[in-house]
């Protein structure tokens, strides 16, 4: 388990370094003078004349080798300093924090809903294998995979907000406003989760140790409850983590459509307005979070599996 952990940790560090370095490079590779771009993200006032630019670039160390600048940038980043947004002229960190909360709650709600629904649907489908209930569940959840969020969301708004006036069409105020975005966001994971649960339970059901459990006197229900469902749900833990990362990205569309001031919206605005510090901040936070969560979930998966947990490799 320990070497396994060490390898994961190494990968984690490498991932964060790689992503942050790529992000750090944006001002240098996008069109325009990197020095002016960086100064604009560091100094509140407008700096126009060349002598001031030279003075500031000396002061901010912009003539140093790239990797020194990177390390300095990384240092600032880790203390929460992500520079000033071009558009709002306020520190990016001040915008990122509230947005992060919104996106996290959106994603957690969607994943929770998806996991809960898929456990019910998947277990039902597996226990009813081949019967109408299984076929219906499988057909419907398969169709979910093919549903584009940017189509479903406007349709939902059209029906539930504009026609039926049941739910708000946009914004992030109160539980009502969360229903539609969460529903749209949860759809695709529900589809994958359900099929994972179904496959997992079916596989667990066919394992030979299940027959052995019956021979010890456990009833069918006791066997399913103690030996089939726990084993069958195990793959879901990893899948949920993977989808955590996926949904952090997937929320861009949903946040844009429903005008939710989350990370996705922030990132989109940053990209659309060429607001480099804002885009940098948003990407670093989202990627860092995604990597961290995936690794955490991997750990949980390892802890739940005695063979991985106890391995010396």
């Amino acid at each position, binding site marked *: 388990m320990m070497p396994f952990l060490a390898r994961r940790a190494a990968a984690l560090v*490498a991932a964060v370094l790689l992503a942050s370095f790529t992000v750090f490079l944006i001002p240098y590779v996008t069109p325009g003078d990197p020095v002016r771009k960086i100064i604009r993200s560091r100094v509140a006032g407008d700096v126009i004349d060349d002598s001031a630019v030279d003075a500031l670039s000396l002061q901010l160390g912009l003539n140093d080798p790239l990797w020194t600048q990177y390390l300095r940038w990384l240092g600032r980043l880790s203390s929460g300093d992500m520079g000033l947004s071009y558009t709002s002229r306020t520190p990016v960190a001040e915008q990122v924090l509230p947005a992060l909360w919104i996106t996290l709650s959106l994603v957690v709600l969607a994943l929770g809903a998806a996991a809960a629904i898929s456990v019910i649907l998947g277990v039902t489908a597996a226990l009813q294998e081949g019967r109408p209930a299984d076929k219906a569940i499988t057909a419907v959840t398969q169709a979910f995979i093919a549903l584009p969020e*940017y*189509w479903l969301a*406007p349709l939902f708004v059209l029906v539930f907000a504009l026609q039926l006036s049941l739910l708000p069409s946009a914004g992030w105020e109160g539980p009502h406003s969360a229903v539609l975005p969460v529903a749209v966001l949860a759809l695709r994971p529900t589809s994958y989760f359900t099929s994972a649960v179904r496959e997992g339970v079916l596989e667990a059901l066919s394992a030979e140790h299940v027959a052995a459990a019956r021979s010890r006197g456990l009833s069918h229900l006791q066997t399913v409850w103690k030996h089939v469902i726990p084993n069958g749900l195990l793959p879901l833990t990893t899948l949920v983590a993977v989808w955590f990362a996926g949904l952090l990205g*997937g929320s861009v569309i949903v946040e844009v459509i429903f005008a939710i001031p989350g990370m996705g919206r922030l990132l989109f605005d940053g990209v659309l307005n060429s607001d480099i510090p804002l885009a940098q901040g948003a990407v670093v936070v989202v990627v860092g979070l995604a990597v961290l969560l995936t690794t955490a979930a991997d750990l949980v998966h390892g802890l739940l599996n005695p063979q991985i947990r106890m391995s010396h490799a």
Partner: protein
Amino acid sequence: MRKLPVHVRAAGAVLLLIVLSVALAAWIAPYPPAEQNLAARLAAPDAAHLLGTDHLGRDTLSRLLDGGQFSLTIAALATVLTAVTGTAVGVLSARRRGWLDEFFTRTNDVLLAMPEMVVALFLVAALGTGYPSLLLALTVTGWTPFARLARALAYDVSARGFIEAAKVVGCPPSFIVLRHILPHLAGPLLGQATLRFGQFLINVGALSYLGLGVQPPQSDWGSMLAAAQPYAVRAPLTILVPGLVIFAVALCVTLIGQHVSRVTGSRLLLSTVPSRAVAHA
């Protein structure tokens, strides 16, 4: 073509119909896609405009056929590119093992943790819009499911007795890879490719919807959806139709892909589970 289930045949037929009409758009479209007719804005379907018109009075059907060329081509290109790269990487890691395998596996895990959409947004922002950057945005993370699947399968096949037997009788590595390993990977990878095509199609649409994919005057299904949104209440058909086409194509390829995956004995879910979980499950 032995005993395909009804739903798979139906999916194939619908897919064929859509792809053919899109390919022949130049000949069968009733109007030039960009021709505006401000007198007939947001028109309901009638004999002149089978699917109505958009906010500039352009014929929806013609735009749909024309826009499909972009959407389908780029999704197909991305699928082929990622399938080839991913398979090569996967087979290479499984054959070489050691540090190369470790490197690719970790890269894979890392890319898996990267939100696809964020990476795409980021790349389009950094490199600008256009065909190449759009393609890069889709492929840079898109190869990983193929690599994971190919690696897991190649690992399993390599552990089979006939690979060792081939080695013992002196078959060179090229023969082993080309004649023994790749044929065993073909079916599952084909299933995977079909499924991924659907997801690429949806993702291209998403980028276009956000205004980061195809740029005007060229249009595709995603940008049509975005353009129609302000008029959703007045002309619901303008947002219903392009989305429905994306959904139909994605659903058809998903059904076909699921079928291929099932008959070739691999599981759809391999694509979304990290390499370790697949290889050692």
